[in-house]
């Protein structure tokens, strides 16, 4: 039984929106990081679904790169968050406000 392409696209659009809202509304840097990962994975779903429906491998090719990039970003991001936690003992982004206009 096959699920229509639009369902995949709809699901990934919803996931992407949840990720976006997470980034905009949350204040914990780790949660922000997770939201960004959710956004990237929503896009992966879109790409795989499109690639499958069109019978073209390029979309899936990009997904491999996205997965690798997401891992690298997560590692770098966590390292930065740890560095800032050691300095300020908080990961609340509203308290990280050294720079002003």
């Amino acid at each position, binding site marked *: 039984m*096959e699920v229509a392409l639009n369902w995949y696209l709809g699901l990934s659009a919803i996931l992407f929106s949840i990720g976006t809202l997470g980034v905009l509304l949350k204040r914990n840097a780790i949660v922000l990081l997770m939201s960004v990962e959710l956004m990237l994975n929503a896009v992966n779903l879109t790409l795989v679904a499109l690639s499958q429906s069109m019978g073209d491998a390029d979309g899936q090719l990009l997904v*491999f790169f996205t997965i*690798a990039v997401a*891992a690298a970003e*997560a*590692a770098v991001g966590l390292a930065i968050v740890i560095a800032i936690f050691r300095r300020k003992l908080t990961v609340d982004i509203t308290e990280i406000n050294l720079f002003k206009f």
Partner: protein
Amino acid sequence: MFGDFIPLFIMIALATGLALTLLKAAEIIGPKRPNRIKRTPYESGMDPIGSARERYSVKFYLVAMIFIVFDVEVVFMYPWAVSFHDFIEGGAAFGVMVVVTIFTVILLIGLVYDIKKGGLDFEQ
């Protein structure tokens, strides 16, 4: 096609609804006589010792991050492994090995750096 899923959705809705109703009902109908003992995490059990939020060694994060990176880089090996046979039969055995060797060597250099810098050193 969507019709095939309707029983499933009904089942999910029923299950969720029932669970929520019962929880709410227990809260509304049930007697409420809180006291100190009842509010402890383990009623008539052992008292918890120390905080649940213990600090882990930062090494833990480091190893986790290194794991993520090396774990996920292997993702590039899967398509290579899947199409490996086609390349061998297509007469491109040398090329396909060269490509994966380059990839592995680059990863290996990362690992060498990691070990030399003590990233996997648990002792200190």
